[in-house]
């Protein structure tokens, strides 16, 4: 968007993003700002206050519904999203929705897509979704198979970095040093979760050479909507990895969900990018770089790093991870990916 002098103007989403919306052309406004939004995950569900996953799922699915003219079927993995949305006889889902098992959502989605192809109903599109445990761990085989076969499914992972539904145990997506129920900081030699590669699923998805991979956070919901819409323009396997803070599991204030999702990006710990055919094609630059401490401090899962004395050695290693991300993806202005 340009101002009257032809100068490029940048609009940044803030906490409420309301101002940002008003400044945009009506067509560019968020799906949630429209009267005709589908409310795919409608109100009344049992998610905790400040739940990042509920927010991410609502925006992702409403954007997908809008992109497909309401012709959408969802397959959901077991997990918080499934449990809080369907305590029958109540269901928050206003689209055809199936939950089968914890580890098979991508395969169930593949089956839905296969049936639609067989029936000549390719106007109806399919979305698979789950948390990080259901995606990077127990559902990983099915997800990789779905990618490899080229099935026409958009899979969305809502990553809150641990098994929250079972009581905050570590997953393959839990970051180093984080306290979980089974990575407690006990003794100096165990400062939370181990350091290691973890499972960087967006990159693993890219290695499958699928048409579209993107990351997003609930701090920039407009960006998430745009990515879902971009994904629905394409066919074949697509993957979106959404960073969704969990106040309960992280020991964070419910009001800080958006703030934490913004800080994780600004620190460089969670790179936001898009990839096509296995190559990065766009990154969201960091506007105001912050040290990782700013992101870590508001979360009790990292409280053991800020004791007396603080674990500066561990914090430095986390900063090194952020710096490596910044270098790898060119997250600062003047850098290229």
């Amino acid at each position, binding site marked *: 968007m340009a101002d009257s002098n032809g100068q490029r103007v940048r609009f940044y989403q803030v906490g409420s993003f309301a101002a940002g919306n008003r400044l945009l052309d009506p067509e560019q406004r968020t799906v949630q700002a429209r009267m005709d939004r589908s409310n795919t995950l409608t109100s009344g569900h049992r998610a905790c206050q400040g739940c990042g996953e509920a927010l991410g799922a609502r925006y992702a699915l409403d954007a997908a519904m809008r992109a497909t003219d309401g012709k959408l079927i969802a397959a959901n993995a077991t997990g918080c999203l499934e449990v809080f949305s369907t305590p029958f006889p109540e269901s928050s889902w206003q689209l*055809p929705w199936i939950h089968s098992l914890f580890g098979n959502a991508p395969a169930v989605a593949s089956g839905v897509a296969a049936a639609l192809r067989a029936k000549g109903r390719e106007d109806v599109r399919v979305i698979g979704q789950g948390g990080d445990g259901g995606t990077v761990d127990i559902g990983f085989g099915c997800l990789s198979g779905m990618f490899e076969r080229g099935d026409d499914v958009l899979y969305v992972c809502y990553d809150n970095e641990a098994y929250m539904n079972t009581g905050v145990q570590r997953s393959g997506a839990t970051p180093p040093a984080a306290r979980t129920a089974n990575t407690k900081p006990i003794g100096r030699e165990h400062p939370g979760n181990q350091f290691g590669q973890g499972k960087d699923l967006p990159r693993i998805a890219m290695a499958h050479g699928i048409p579209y991979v993107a990351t997003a956070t609930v701090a920039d919901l407009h960006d998430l909507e745009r990515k879902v819409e971009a994904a629905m323009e394409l066919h074949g396997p697509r993957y979106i990895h959404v960073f969704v803070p969990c106040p309960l599991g992280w020991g964070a204030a419910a009001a800080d969900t958006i703030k934490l999702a913004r800080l994780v990006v600004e620190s460089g710990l969670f790179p936001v990018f898009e990839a096509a055919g296995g190559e990065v094609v766009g990154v969201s630059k960091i506007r105001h770089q912050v040290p990782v401490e700013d992101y870590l401090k508001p979360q009790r899962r990292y409280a053991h790093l800020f004791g007396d004395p603080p674990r500066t050695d561990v914090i430095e290693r986390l900063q090194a991870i952020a710096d490596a991300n910044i270098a790898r993806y060119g997250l600062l202005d003047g850098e290229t990916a």
Partner: protein
Amino acid sequence: MLRQLEGSAAVAETVGLCRPEVVCAYPISPQTHIVEGLSDLVRAGRLGSCEYVTVESEFAALSVCIGASATGARTYTATASQGLLYMAEALYNASGLGLPIVMTVANRAIGAPINIWNDHSDAMSQRDCGWIQLYAEDNQEAADLHVQAFSLAERLSLPVMVCMDGFVLTHAYERVDLPTAEQVDAFLPPFEPRQVLDPADPVTIGAMVGPEAFAEVKYLAHAKQMQALDAIPEVAAEFERAFGRPSGGLVRGYRAEDAETIVIGLGSVLGTIEDTVDELREDGVKIGALAIKSFRPFPLEEVRAALAGAKRVVVLEKALAVGIGGIVSANVRMALSGIALHGYTVIAGLGGRPITRRSLRALFEQAIEDRLEPLTFLDLDRERVEAELERMASGGRSGPHAENILRESGIVGARSH
């Protein structure tokens, strides 16, 4: 049309005639020829718009079937042995959701020790997963049961397993009368799902259910299997009228009316049992056989009626409930409340060991004289078992059982080091 063909090919052709819309399978011996045949049919364009999905595991195979069936597609898969166990979680899910998926189980042993040959350990291990389980005696029946299975599954909105003995049937070339497409179309109407994922009428499938309704949902699963006790003979009778040959049903007696001794079995072993019965009948022995064709639901009344006049029952099982013995016999026993007769459990044919007429004759002769142990392992090599037990008792690192026994057998190239 009468053709000489492999059992797997007969099943593949027949499943093809049932117009599946989604076929999804993961390869495992001895199921492979069936799904290879279906892959060929799909690739040759003979199954219209049918989708054949190749997956990375049996767990994914059945999961794809769950998604496809819930979207209203007629859905088929096949597996065996370890593959069936790898599906276990999804098996319960498919039946719990009431999805009418049809699956062939090419019955095979379960390891360890790994073994690719036939017995019924796989299907028997999943007897309580909520699927209907039908057992084929020969390849004609294996083919016919698939047509019936789709009809039953869709009528009751329940998944159905058609069990056929691995290798013994799947890889045997026999004469099979394959139905025509017109015949099958007339018998099997297009699939009308009871529940379907449809944007025009959005439903939630697979919600969380707590103690307030869980028992009722499970009871319905049982009630539908009880309905299947009526539906299975109905479908079999309709099939016989349409195709001119009997197959399927709940049970089938053989020279059992006046029999004092009745031998119960499932699947292809019935042929050998019946030959042995004929031999003994020639000697004036009042012996007969009872084939259990539907193991789930279990036809308690029919079994009870068949055994009401007998003095003893020999249940020949191709599976073992370790720690107690028989699986089928435990079910048969439930049919016998108030009937006093001698009951014998015989574990036979494990891991593909041949069940010979000679062994059966000797076994039945012992039974007739009531000299059988309550639990017998047919043709068990006692000497080798005793030797291994002794080796274990000697303490220390006695080594793995299977490898020790193979080494002593001197077969398969196992050597002492």
